[in-house]
């Protein structure tokens, strides 16, 4: 009996050792915009609320905590949908975010050339996420989550491809540890999308014999292969497309040829801007080469001049 009472007493005492917060006392964070300067300043947007909370602190989390006081609710970042950062201390901030166990690793990332906090404030509640999603669906950009970007930044080249918001223009860009190395044009950004992600249900504008037409891509998949070719390394991007031209009076062969040409041009533009222009391995070329045991012992920078790019675009209707 004494044992049971003692055990009950211990358990009752330990009941106090719990951090309970009722659901109604929690604010669920949807978007965070964070600017690094001398202090970290954040703009926090919650689910179902128009008001944007602001706060600043030494770290991103202390800044979020300070924003919390204005709202009176405990801010819960586990459902963070979008993180907007300015180009300073990108890697450090992402590392902290990943190490903090309450942030979803699948949270999307946008880098702004201006102030991230102001960007969050200037868009409506879901507007920024919607722009990101719709651009990604149209094959204009590729959405990247914080874990994937951090993984890329930890690679040897220390660069990652991320959607960059330049003014009101959202395209892909290449970022380093704490800077934006370059912003891609719309065409280059589209090319990068073809190179890195599968496309679904998009309409590609093509030109067949001087006549504008739309090529409907139902589904596409991309595969990268590396092959030693003398002192060169042959990188082949194989893109398999299932699609057809919408216009009925254009032949299947001609439209497919035009689509393949268009995609090749877009891809080569993206490659020349990122790999050749910025020395950035945003396609995972190095991993691909290493897995084939080619150029072992050479650094990424030594490999770049040896690379030759080929595109194999296969279209089936």
């Amino acid at each position, binding site marked *: 009996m004494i044992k049971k009472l003692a055990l009950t007493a211990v358990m009752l005492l330990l009941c106090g050792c719990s951090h309970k917060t009722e659901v109604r006392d929690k604010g669920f964070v949807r978007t965070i915009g964070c600017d690094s300067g001398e202090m970290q300043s954040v703009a926090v947007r919650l689910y*179902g609320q128009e008001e944007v909370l602001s706060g600043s602190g030494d770290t991103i989390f202390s800044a979020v905590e300070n924003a919390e006081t204005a709202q009176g609710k405990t801010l819960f970042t586990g459902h963070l949908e979008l993180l907007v950062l300015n180009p300073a201390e990108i890697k450090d901030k992402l590392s902290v975010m990943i190490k903090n166990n309450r942030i979803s690793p699948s949270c999307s990332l946008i880098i702004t050339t201006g102030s991230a906090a102001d960007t969050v404030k200037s868009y409506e509640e879901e507007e920024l996420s919607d722009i990101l999603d719709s651009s990604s669906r149209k094959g204009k950009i590729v959405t990247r989550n914080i874990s994937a970007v951090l993984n890329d930044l930890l690679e040897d080249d220390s660069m990652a491809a991320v959607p960059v918001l330049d003014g009101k223009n959202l395209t892909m860009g290449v970022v380093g540890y704490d800077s934006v190395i370059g912003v891609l044009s719309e065409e280059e950004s589209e090319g990068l999308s073809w190179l890195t992600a599968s496309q679904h249900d998009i309409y590609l504008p093509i030109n067949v014999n001087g006549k504008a037409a739309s090529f409907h891509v139902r589904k596409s998949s991309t595969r990268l292969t590396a092959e030693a070719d003398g002192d060169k390394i042959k990188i082949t991007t194989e893109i398999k497309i299932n699609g057809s031209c919408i216009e009925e009076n254009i032949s299947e062969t001609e439209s497919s040829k035009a689509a393949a040409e268009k995609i090749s041009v877009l891809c080569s533009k993206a490659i020349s801007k990122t790999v050749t222009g910025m020395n950035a391995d945003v396609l995972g070329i190095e991993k691909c080469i290493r897995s084939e045991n080619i150029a072992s012992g050479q650094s990424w920078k030594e490999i770049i001049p040896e690379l030759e790019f080929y595109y194999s675009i296969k279209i089936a209707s």
Partner: protein
Amino acid sequence: MKPTQLKNLTVIPDLSENLSKIRDIAGGSSDLLINEIEICGIKVALMCCEGMLSTSTITELILHPLMNIKLENPSPAALLTHIETRMLLSVDRPVAYNYEDFFRLLNSGFAMLAADGQDRILAFGVQGYDKKGIDEPSGENNITGSHDGFMEVIRSNMSLIRRRMKSPVLVQKLFVMGDKSQTDMCICYMSDRVPSSLVEKIMDSIEKMDLESVLSTGYVQPFIEPDKKRLFSSVGRTERPDVLCSKLIEGRVAILVDGNPFALIIPKLWTDDFQTVDDYNFKPYFATFIRWLKYGAFLISILLPSLYVAIAMHHPELLNSTLLLILAESEQNAPFSIIAETVGVLLMYEIIKEAGLRLPKAVGGAVSIVGGLIIGDAAVTSGLISTPLLTVAALSVVSGFVVPDLSQAITVLRIVFIICGGIWGIFGISLFGAAVLFNMCATGDYGFPYTAPISPFKAKTMGDIAVREGFRKMQNNDFTVEELHE
């Protein structure tokens, strides 16, 4: 006077002395009927207990033949010998030599014949008391199985079993327990299937029972289930003769108690609660589907409310955004803490259920209306309880109905799990879950683990646990519980 004392009090060869003793022991009880008559000039007394025997039977089968006896040399010994050897007045004809046996037989509905100068009293089995007819079991309903259930009379129950198992290896041993109640009990087993020492061990446990009365199986259960610290019972209970027979074939032992329409089954396994008669009448694929549905329902009934509380309070990241927002919005105006709300709803349900059970059927329906419509609807409309929570509680309660035999454990565990989940989240649920699991695994009497055949794992039995094999496969699987003995 105690029955043990009555045992030592033997019948003496003096009728008037015997009758005064009987009247004295009975204390003037009105249901004791003594008819003193003379047969062939010998004083005899025919005694019976009013209401315990059939009047027409006793008149036709006992009184008429007795009054027509004609002896050449009448003497008390010759009379009783004549009745015993020449007249088949009833099939059941025991003889009482002491007052313990006399009163037990008398009060069981036997007609007792005492003769002057004889130290024995003849008994004739002419029981004919009022009893309920064989009815459909109230708690173990099924669609395709038989629709007869046990009743309150032990001998009828024994016959229900015998009707299904005509083999001579079915042993049904009657014995009497309870100093005052003198209740008939019966232990049943298949002598070729039952583990050798199981019957002995159970009888040893029963003999240690020193109760004044045995009015229900619940009186016996604690004595054959010695480990009292367990959450789950290792003794099963059924009111269906077909279920009992299937258990006997598996080498289990059953105990019937007179006056109770339930039989106890030893040993019981956790998986037994998920098997029903219908499983064996449905197609195997459907029975398998239903069985897994029941396993799932058991988990839902215990864990769903606690997981809801734990996720809402501590781990909202486990929900997707849409679900979370629905939950958050509904809880926005609830005045109570989510733990209090959940425990409150479940306690309210238990109160309504208890009220519905104990009240007359006509009023019971009204309780459901008051509980379900008025309280439930009003609580949600007024914002006292959130709709998702009520849905979760209802789902959990309904799932609990799928395994009614485990309802006692489910009811209590559900509430403790909610408290643990509310305080320490999934960590608390897992910790308490570990404690329950250890408790379950420690359950098992007479060397039969309650968690068998899952742990210890017996692959051979999975044909009727993980799935429900067809009878073609099962007929070769000569399973007895002895295989699970540790």
